[in-house]
């Protein structure tokens, strides 16, 4: 089984110079996500695993994956809890 993450279509958003501002589907308070959150949001345009996201952000920031792993997972959890990122579970094919 593997899990992938992707932006919810229902989440409205706009880019801002140092991040992205998001309006969750259920909620009236937009939230600004800055710094690495901007790159993470950009990478969530398609279904991606955590490992894929960590690799992409590490490459983007010129860092080793293990240096960004924890921050990416925390940001991802935050975006999921906001309701702007959906999680899909895929059954692995043999």
């Amino acid at each position: 089984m593997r899990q992938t993450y992707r932006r919810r279509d229902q989440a409205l958003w706009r880019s801002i110079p140092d991040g992205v501002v998001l309006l969750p589907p259920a909620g009236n308070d937009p939230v600004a996500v800055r710094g690495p959150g901007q790159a993470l949001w950009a990478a969530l345009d398609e279904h991606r695993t955590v490992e894929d996201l960590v690799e992409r952000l590490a490459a983007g920031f010129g860092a080793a994956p293990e240096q960004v792993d924890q921050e990416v997972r925390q940001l991802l959890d935050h975006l999921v809890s906001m309701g702007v990122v959906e999680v899909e579970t895929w059954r692995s094919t043999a």
Partner: protein
Amino acid sequence: MAVDSLNAALAAVTAHGLPGAEVSAPRTPLDDDSWTLFLANVAPQGLSGLLAAAVSDGTIPATEAQRAEVHDRHLSSMVTVLLLERLLLESVEALAAAGVETRVLKGSAVAHLDYADPALRPFRDVDLLVRGDDLPRTVDVLRQAGIVARANELRRGFASRFGKGITLYTHEAYEIDVHRTFAHGAFGTRVPLGDVWDGQQELRLGGQVLHALRAEERLLHAAFHCVLGGPAPKAISVRDVAEMALYGDYSQDRLRSTARAWRAEAVLAVAVRHAWRSLRIADITAVSSWAARYEPTLADRRLLRMYQSDASYAAHAMSSLRAVPGVRGKAAFIQSLALPDQRFLEVHEMTRVQWLRRGVARVGQALRDPERGP
């Protein structure tokens, strides 16, 4: 800050990202007083998105404090945009459930369909097009959601048949402009709305599929906004015309045939010429070449002057009357103007005789000098 310098700085922001625009940006950060005056003009001109981009990439030099201020204001305008898009989605969904077809106009449609980054194109209200016959039902559906009109209709059915549209407000004072056509007066009356409703372009937003005007009609609507809104168009309206004319995915032939069908070639030509001139665009394109050569008729030039002055409602009503087809249509139009509903008169604190006297006086004035304000 001198007016010329202010206008030059605003033009530089308006043209940000247009490679062919030969406008000069300030070379150093503005001093405090100039910055205050400049920034006070940015939001009313719809330029917060373009300014944020220009400051971020250094095109417009700014101090750290100025950059922070620009970013804060841009964030604030984007928050408004997102809440308006939520309102747009809820309104369109409610109207669709009631069988009312819509087209998303301006703001959200232009931001997503005509700009590479929708954050460059802020907006302050929601604009929807509905069929004239659907206007009463639209008002009813939105009223049930707490979105109401503040002004009474001149006469029941006037907006559906002759008016430009109706403005409604949410509890939070967000504005929804429900349009029947694209301008008041003759240029609005001339638009063959049946043709407009024959086509659409998809706009995917918030997981829903909405419908906007086709690219050619969006450019024409942008031209209407640029030219017919009074003496000085908003900077973002000028940018809309430039952006669409330069980079829009439209057919030249269909653009020209649609402008002809709308009897709005003069509006398109003047809008494109204005955008090219005010932003000093060096690109020569099919539409800019056509616009440079186009000669409006005498009647259209007079009509354009009326829109670009502060001409009275009576003057525009007279021009609309000429454009209303058929004797019965004209008679119904005159009847509506001459005999408004009692509720309308009460809201305006006038008797029927006072209304008629004022109308006659203003029509007389409009006949003598159509371009003069009330």
